[in-house]
């Protein structure tokens, strides 16, 4: 079965011969090849290929341009950032200087006020101490006076004799010592 089909195919191929070798068709084929290929070459080289080339070129230029622009923008952004950072650092330094000055001023004021206050306090203290000392002295004197009077009164009542102040003093001194 298959063999008969194969031989049939081969027979058909043989009987037909190669149409390619029929030289009578060659002029027509060459003529139309020249016409169509020539036309295609003309259309391609004069219209279409320049168009495609231009489109590709344009895109390439555009991309290069955009990349340049992007690089430029980046550079500007970086510059702005450094400027900003510098300004920030300056401002911070200034702020620190200002706060430092203010602190010194305040400290100086506080010192002055403290000194004033201390001076006032020490003056008052001195006055008070003086007062205390005088009070103490007058109190002693009064106690001594009271003691002398009491002594004199006691002695008068006991022996009806008024002692001299010198004797009383000596007796009191003796008693205080004891």
């Amino acid at each position, binding site marked *: 079965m298959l063999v008969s089909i194969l031989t049939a195919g081969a027979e058909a191929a043989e009987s037909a011969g190669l149409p390619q070798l029929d030289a009578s068709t060659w002029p027509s084929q060459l003529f139309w090849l020249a016409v*169509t290929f020539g036309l295609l070459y003309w259309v391609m080289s004069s219209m279409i290929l320049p168009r495609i080339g231009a489109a590709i070129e344009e895109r390439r230029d555009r991309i290069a341009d955009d990349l340049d622009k992007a690089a430029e923008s980046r550079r500007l952004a970086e510059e702005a950032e450094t400027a900003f950072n510098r300004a920030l650092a300056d401002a911070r330094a200034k702020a620190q200087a200002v706060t430092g000055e203010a602190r010194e001023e305040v400290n100086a004021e506080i010192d002055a006020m403290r000194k004033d206050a201390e001076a006032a306090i020490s003056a008052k203290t001195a006055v008070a101490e003086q007062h205390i000392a005088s009070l103490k002295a007058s109190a002693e004197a009064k106690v001594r006076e009271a003691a002398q009077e009491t002594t004199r009164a006691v002695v008068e009542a006991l022996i009806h004799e008024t002692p001299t102040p010198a004797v009383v003093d000596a007796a009191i001194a003796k008693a205080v010592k004891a």
Partner: protein
Amino acid sequence: MIHAATPGLQAAGPMEQFEILPIVPLTLGNIDVSFTNSALWMTIGVVAIALFFFFATNRRALIPGRMQSVAEILHEFVANLVRDTIGHDGMKFFPYVFTLFIFILTANFFGLIPSIPGSPHNLHTFTTTSHIIVTFALAMLTITIVIIYGFAKNGLKFLKLFAPSGLPIWLMPILVPIEIISFLSRPVSLGVRLFANMLAGHIILKLFAGFVIALLGAGGFASILAIAPFLGSIAIFLLEFLVAALQAYVFAILTCIYLSDAAHAADH
């Protein structure tokens, strides 16, 4: 003989698809230049290419659409091919290489379109590149450009292509004829390669398709066997797409290599 399996299904011989059939008879002087099925498919191919590229590049958008992307990819593909093989001053051949590549590619691909069943034979799909005279003419065009450019650029130093400098004198009698023969065989191999690939592919496709018809016609168990050549024809059909693109690429790259030889003949 192969019989029709069902009415209307006619298994044509594998060579019928290559027949040149007139559509509009024409003569130029006494030369027959009839508008044939071959001419029709050349025209269809060229018109399709022109229309595609015209609409693809019509808007010239900065962000390309689908068609423009395809056009640009093809452009860059061939441009890189030319630049890489010939160098920057080879870009003057770019339109030629591009036209050659796209012409052959389209012819090969359009030849794979199935014919409309029942249409007249002279309107069946036709592979223009399956004819040796067409491929050989394109090969000769390339070689002619190579020779003219070679002499124009290098003068007589172009002949150094056949006798590279630094070659020992006693090797000359052997090597020079070899180089000349290899140069002369270039257009032949260039033309025959494309022609033979197209011819063989289409014959095999047709044979497989013929087997399917014949087995179906035989009926019974043989009809079931028809699945094998049917799958085979699908596989061959897919392979032919690869061959179609590959052969167009091979033709273009060999053209570039020969042009590169012509451009740099004096440096050898």
